[in-house]
C-alpha cells in the first residue's frame, strides 16, 4: 500500500515561504485580519518560522535556523484518536484528512496535536470583492463530506491534506489517459513550487523511492520522535 511521505532538506531551504503561499492558493485558506494575525490566528497549513535558540537545541542534532512545517501525517496520529465525531481520520494511504461537514469545532484534535499544525476558523472566511475570483474550484465532496480546498464554514478545524485533491485529479487523469497511476504523478503544491528544490515527495513503502532513500540519510530526523507519533515528514538537517 502506498504510504505518502515528504522529505524536507533544511540545508537547501531558504525560508522563502513559497510553500506557504502555494498552499494558500491551492487550498483556499483565507487571509485573516491584522488584529487576528497578531493573536496568532493566521491560517498557514504550511507555516515557515525562525527557531529560537532553545528550540534549536530541541531539534535532534540539527542546526536549522528556520523551520517549514506542514502536517506531519503521523503514522500514529494523536488527533484522529481524540476526535469525537470522526471528522479527522487517516486514510488507507496514510494521509490525515479533515471533513469539515462532520467537524463540530471542539478542537480536541488541535490540542492533541504536538506539532501545532491544526487551524481553527474563528470567523467565516471571506475574500474581499473580486479576490473571490481566484479561489480554486476543486472541492472534495460527498454526502456529509466536505474536504480539501472546499470553502470552510465558521467554527471548523482545517489542516494540510498533502493536497489530496490533486491525488484524486491525477488518478482521474491516469484513467482518462488509460494508463496506470504512477506515484510520481502526484506532488502537493508546496513541493511543486519549492524555490530551493528542498522538498521531495513519494511513497515511503517503496524502498527505491527518493523519499525512502533520503530517509536513510545520516542527516535525516523527524520532529518529536520521542512522542511516538511516527511522523511521515522527514527533515534533513544542515551539513
Amino acid at each position: 500500500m502506498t504510504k505518502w511521505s515528504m522529505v524536507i532538506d533544511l540545508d537547501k531551504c531558504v525560508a522563502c515561504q513559497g510553500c506557504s503561499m502555494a498552499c494558500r492558493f491551492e487550498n483556499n485558506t483565507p487571509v485573516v485580519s491584522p488584529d487576528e494575525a497578531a493573536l496568532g490566528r493566521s491560517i498557514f497549513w504550511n507555516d515557515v518560522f525562525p527557531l529560537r535558540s532553545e528550540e534549536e537545541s530541541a531539534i535532534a542534532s540539527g542546526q536549522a535556523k528556520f523551520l517549514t512545517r506542514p502536517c506531519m501525517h503521523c503514522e500514529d496520529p494523536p488527533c484522529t484518536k481524540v476526535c469525537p465525531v470522526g471528522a479527522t481520520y487517516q486514510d488507507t494511504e496514510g494521509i490525515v484528512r479533515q471533513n469539515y461537514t462532520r467537524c463540530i469545532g471542539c478542537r480536541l484534535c488541535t490540542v492533541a496535536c504536538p506539532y501545532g499544525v491544526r487551524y481553527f476558523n474563528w470567523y467565516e472566511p471571506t475574500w474581499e470583492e473580486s479576490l473571490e475570483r481566484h479561489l480554486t474550484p476543486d472541492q472534495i465532496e460527498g454526502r456529509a463530506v466536505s474536504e480539501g480546498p472546499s470553502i470552510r464554514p465558521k467554527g471548523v478545524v482545517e489542516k494540510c491534506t498533502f493536497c489530496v485533491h490533486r491525488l484524486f485529479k491525477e488518478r482521474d487523469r491516469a484513467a482518462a489517459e488509460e494508463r496506470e497511476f504512477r506515484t510520481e504523478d502526484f506532488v502537493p503544491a508546496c513541493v511543486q513550487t519549492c524555490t530551493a528544490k528542498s522538498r521531495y515527495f513519494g511513497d515511503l513503502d517503496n524502498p527505491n523511492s527518493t523519499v525512502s532513500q533520503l530517509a536513510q540519510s545520516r542527516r535525516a530526523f523527524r520532529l518529536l520522535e520521542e512522542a511516538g507519533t511516527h511522523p511521515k515528514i522527514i527533515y534533513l538537517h544542515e551539513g
Partner: protein
Amino acid sequence: MGSNKSLSRRVFLKAAGGVVGASGALAVGSNLLRSLLQENDGPVYLRTSQEEEIISTVCLLCPSGCGMLGRVADGNLVKLEGNPMHPINLGALCPKGQAAPELLYNPDRLTGPLKKIGSRDSGEWEPITWDDAIRVVAGKLTQLRENGQPERAAILYGETRGQMRQFLERFMASIGSPNVISHDSLNIEAAKLGTLFTQGIYDLPVYDLENSNYILSFGANLLEAGRTPQRMVSGHSYLRQGRAVRGKVILIDPRQGITGGKADEWIPIKPGTDAALALGIAHVIIRTGRFDTDFVHNYSFGFDDFVGEDRTLHKGFKSYVLENYDPERVEMITGVPATTITRIAGEFSGNPPAIAVLPGKGGLLNGNLNGMSAAMAILSLNALVGSLETPGGVLTQRYVTCPDWPEMPNDDVAERGRQQERADGAGTLFPLGNHAYQAVADRVLDGYPIEALFLYDANPIYEAPGGGRFKDAFEKIPFIVSFATFLDESANYADLILPEPTFLERWQDDYIEGLGYPGVGLRQPVVEPLFDTMNTGDFLIRVTKEIGGSVSKAFPWDNYKSLLQERLSNIGTGWETLQELGVWLIPGYHFSRRGSERWVDEVVGKDRKKSPRDGRFDFYSRELYCLLEEKNDDLLAAMGAGVSGDELFLPHYEAVVYQGDEKEFPFVLNVVTLMSLGPYSYAANMPSLQEISGMVVGERWGSWMEMNDEYAHKLGFHDKDQVWIESPFGRLQTKLRLVKGMREDIVNIPHNQGHTAIGRWAKDRGVNGLEILNPASEPFTGLASYTNTRVKVYKA
C-alpha cells in the same frame, strides 16, 4: 502546456478502494458512533471546474523574471505554477509569484483612464476616454515639438527588460528627447558601472554558482533580494546539496539575514568598508603570489606600474595594494580581524573556481566614489584568481539577436532635441552617470524645464530616497502622465492616469538574465484584461500615429504585439511555439578563450567608449581616466573625491562621508528588501504577502526596526518598544525588534511598507525608511545615496 481539457469535465470518483476509503478502515478502534456515521457517508468525489486552460507567462513581482503557468478555470486565474521550461526558476515560484492572483483580482486596481479635476493634490478625478487621452498626450508632445523644445518631455521608468526599454528609448528619440531615465541609479547601477570601468562591459556579471567551489558574497543578499533572487536560490541549492563536493559560502555584510544564516561563515563588516576588505584580500593574494599569472600578465592592464602616453610613471594595482592594504591596516578600517582576512584570501585563491559576488543594492552605494570603487575592487578579486569566463566563475550575459530597428526618419527637431542636456544630469552634472533617477527632483527644482513627464512603472515619491522632494518638483511640471495600475503615491499627482493592465494581462517580452546564455520569456494575457486598461506600448504607438509625420514613420507597427512579433522573429523559433512554451533559450554557455576574437568582442572591453577595446581587464581603469581626464585635481576634490592622482583610477577605499555626526547619530540606517514584499510598490497591496511579510521576526502587516539585541539592552531598550528613528532628514516611529544577527552600529528597516496610497492593504501601514535617507546623489555617478545616512533611536 496548451489546453488541458482532459480534466475539464466534472469528475466524479467513486469511493472505491483506498484513497477515499473513509469508511471501513477507520471503524477499527473507533467508537461505534463514529463508524456508524462514516458508514453513511457514501461516495466521495472531486468536483472541479467545467473548462480549464494552462497559459504561460512571465512574472513581474521582482526582477528575476520567472516563467509561470497560469491555471485558468472557467475564465478565472485560480493558480500559478512555475514554468518548468524556464531556466531561471525551473518550475519553482516564490511567495510573490504564488500570490500574484491577488494582484490581478485586486479590488483597488484602477479600472480606466482618469483625468485630474482641480489642483494637483485635489485627489479628484473624472473618467476620460482613451481616444481623448491619446489626443491630449499627442497634442502636448506636438506642441513641445512645434516650440522646438521636445527635450522638455521626459520619462521615468522602472523595470523594463526586453523590448520595452528599447521601445521607450525609441519613442522618446522619435519625439526628440534624451530624457529616458531608468531607476537603475536606485539599485544596480553601481555594480554595472564597476563592471564597465574594469571589465569594460556595461552589464551585471553573471555567476556560475553551480560549478563554483567558493562564494564570497560582498553584501549580496543572494537568497532574499537582489537582481535575480530565484536564480541565486536555485544555484545555491545545487552548490550546497546537488553535487559530490559541497561549495562554501561566505557572507560579508553588517546584517546576517537569511543569506548569512545559511552561509558557512558570516563576517559582520563595518558598513561601507567593502572596498578595503576586498583590497586587503587582494593584498594577501598578491603578496603570496597566488594569483593567475597568465591572466594578470597577458589579459589585464595596470597590474604593474606603467609609463603612460604622457611619459610619466603611473602606479599599478600591485604596488598600490601592497603599499596600502596590508591586513592589519584593513582590520582597522573594516573591523574584520587580520587573521580572518588572510585566511579568506587563502581560501578564495586556493579553492578555484571561486567567485566574489557584487550586491545589487545596499552596502555599496555610498555617497561618494567609494561605492563604485568597491564594485571595482570586488571584480578585481575575480580577475586576480582568473575566474573571469571560466566554469564556476564569472560569466558575461548574452542576449538574443533581434532584427535592427528600422532607421529613424530624418527629423531636425528631434535631432536637435536629442543633443540637449539630460534632465537628470547624467553625462554632464554627473560625468560618469548614465541614469540619475532620484536627481530629477532636484534638477527640476533647480530650474531644468520639464513640461511633460511620463511615469512608467515609476513611483519616485515612494521609492527614491527622500522622495518627498518629487511632490515639490511635480508642482513645477505642468503635465504629468502616469501609467500606473494602482493609484500610487506618484500617480496621485498626475494629470492623467492611463492604467496599464497587470503583467498577467498584457503582451511583453523579457530577456532572461542570470545564466549567461541568451533566452527570452514571453508575457501574454493569462486572462482577458479585466478593466478598461491599455498596454502602454499600444498607447504610445497610437500616440505616434496621432502625432503623425516622422514620429509615426518611426513606428510602422499596428500595435505593440506586432512589434514584439517582428522583434522576436530571429530567436530561433516561431511565435506560436514561444507563446505556447512561454520561453525560448539558446542554452549552453560557450566560453571564449582568453584573447580570442569572441573574448574581445563580447567578454572584455566591448562597451568602453573612450579607452581601448583590447580585451584587457583594467586593474587601472583607462575608461575612468579618459572620462575624468579634463577635470583637474581641485575640481575633483570639490566634487568629493577622497583621493587624487592614480589612486582615483584604481580600485580604492575612501571613508564614507556620512550624513549625521557619529556622536549624535550612532547608527547607520540600512533599508532592506525582503523576499516577502519584494522591491515593487504594488506588492504591498497584496494581502497574503502582508500576512507573511515579517516572518524573520514574527511580524505581520507592518513595519519594524531591527537592532542588535545585546547592544539594545545596554542602551535600555526592550523588544517591541515603540521607538523614534531620526536622521538629519526626518524621523519615523515604529516598533523595535531585537535580533542577534547584526552589528551594533547599524539598524535595519524593511522596505515596502509605509505607503500613503495604492490601496486598502498598503495604505497607512508601517513606515517607509527611504523617507529619512540622504536624498543627495553621488556627484560623479549620480547614484542614489542609500547607505550613508546615520540615525539615532529613542523611545517614543
